[in-house]
């Protein structure tokens, strides 16, 4: 047995979170049901946030929890529920595709692992090294001022920060917000298929009404199909 006093608890928690992250990532690939995939993805990304906390990147970890897990994935699950009609909850993949993906994935993993183990300095960390919390310097860097040790070697003692990328990302997010709202708006265009559907229905019903009925029906239908499963 290992003496308990010799255990590095940081490593123990690392392996806990790493196993959760990797296991759930593999489960995302293996799962057939799309809602379960979403659950495993949440667990995987949450465990990764734990890894970020362990690596001293508290702000990135909290950001991961807030934006990725709390925002993006809720959005994703929302999308899953809007489209979760019985035939789409679990779309089967052909066994050949699975084998092919397994082979390619294994090859890719081998390459990545080989490069991960290739640098000996990466494998032997210094024990008990302490880093300072980085939230305040990171915030100042995003506002354009670097106050961390990286600025020491730069000319003038100060390196420029990330003000411009920060602003670009802000505008980018705004544009994406508007664009996504425009793309996903409820109005339905007259595609050939929609016209065909409308023509096959009773004459007074408009296409828009059909769209509304179709959406309601899809939600109800998914529930009923879930009940029949």
């Amino acid at each position, binding site marked *: 047995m290992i003496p308990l006093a010799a255990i590095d608890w940081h490593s123990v928690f690392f392996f806990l979170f790493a196993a959760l992250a990797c296991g759930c990532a593999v489960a995302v690939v293996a799962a057939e049901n799309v809602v379960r995939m979403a659950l495993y993805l949440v667990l995987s990304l949450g465990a990764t946030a734990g890894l970020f906390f362990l690596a001293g990147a508290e702000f990135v970890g*909290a950001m991961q929890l807030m934006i990725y897990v709390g925002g993006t994935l809720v959005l994703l699950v929302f999308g899953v529920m809007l489209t979760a009609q019985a035939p789409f909850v679990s779309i089967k993949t052909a066994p050949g595709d699975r084998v092919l993906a397994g082979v390619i994935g294994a090859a890719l993993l081998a390459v990545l692992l080989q490069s991960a183990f290739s640098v000996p300095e990466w494998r032997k960390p210094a024990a008990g090294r302490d880093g300072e919390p980085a939230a305040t310097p990171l915030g100042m860097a995003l506002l354009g001022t670097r106050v961390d040790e990286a600025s020491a070697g730069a000319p003038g003692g100060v390196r420029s920060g990330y003000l411009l990328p920060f602003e670009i990302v802000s505008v980018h997010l705004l544009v994406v917000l508007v664009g996504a709202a425009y793309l996903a708006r409820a109005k339905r265009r007259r595609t050939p298929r929609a016209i065909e559907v409308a023509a096959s229905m009773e004459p007074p019903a408009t296409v828009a009404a059909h769209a509304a009925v179709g959406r309601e029906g899809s939600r109800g239908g998914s529930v009923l199909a879930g009940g029949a499963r």
Partner: protein
Amino acid sequence: MAEFLINSVGFPEWLAWTVTAVVAAVLILNVIAGGALVFIWAERKIAARIQDRLGPTRTGGRFGWLQSLADGIKLIAKEDLMPEGADGMLFRLAPYVSFCASFCAFIALPFAFDFVGQRLNVGVFFVVAVLGLEVFGVILAGYASASKWSLFGAMREAAQVVSYEVPLGMCVVVPVMLAGSMDLVTIAEKQAGWVTNWYLFHDPFTFVIFWVYVTCAVASVNRAPFDLAEAESELVAGFHTEYSGLRWSYFFMAEYGSMFLVSALAAVLFMGGWNGPIPVARLVGLSEGTGDTANYFVRLLGMANLLGKATLGVLVMMWVRWTLPRLRIDQVMTTCLKYCTPIAAAMFAGAMLWQLMLPGGVAPGLSRPAGEIREGWLEGPGGRSAAARSSAVAGVLP
């Protein structure tokens, strides 16, 4: 506590940390579970009084104070039903997801100076982020129940919580900006002293944004008038329609835990945290931070202070619940996107300008009372010395 165990009792390091972690976890768990029992009883009594009834009177002798314990025993004994078409794993998992999220957020919440599960550099952010994860349990419950009502409740909750996180985040940022730190302990410590030091009374903008925060907090924990996810007049019981017994009670513990948490967060961010309106301890010459017994009692007093403020917040939520009618879903969204978000943004800008225009953030003619700790945050656990930092800043500014 870990240092105390290592130095005074002589525990090995790993055992000391384990014991500390277990004690902290059990204490937080008891705050949530015990708090839920008390709050459910209080809610029954308050609802009854508002509706001109008596509420529970028999159980436990007077006032029916054992009513929620009796309810708990009933819930444990109840049959645990699962609908036939339900997704078994997700159905079983969902209550625990909700409860864990609510529980995890308590880790970074300081109950008094140094009475905190884990002091985090990004405490505020962590609490708000983890609190947002509670919605996952609700969504999973809604989907896995294989019931229309549950699914509708879950969809409403998802839309509502994601929307309200935006103004909530903006409200939370204002005290962070005033304190210059995201550490909840630092933020509360900066409001030490008289009641005028609370960020609630810091400037007109923070006073307004506090009420925006209250609105958003009530909405983000799905309390009436924003309880669209469990609107019993239209959705039977919303996302927990199909739940019964102990699993159902987990949802309720999560809900009351979250209510308490957002109230405590409001207390820390805007109402001085564990600092009372009158700095009694400082007036009689005691100060927090040192280790002797008297100061320990000062901290206990501070904890009582914080718990009192948080409980007050929960009671206000109950008062609101039994007073206001429920909003429609489009009204909920309108409140968030057309009112709360613009007001929060404007108040944020206003508070920022207030800090920039008025030296030290103090209006002319007023002076800050003694006892406010404004200096030294840069030298604290936050990072390097102020001198190095300001010289670096001076290097880039013209």
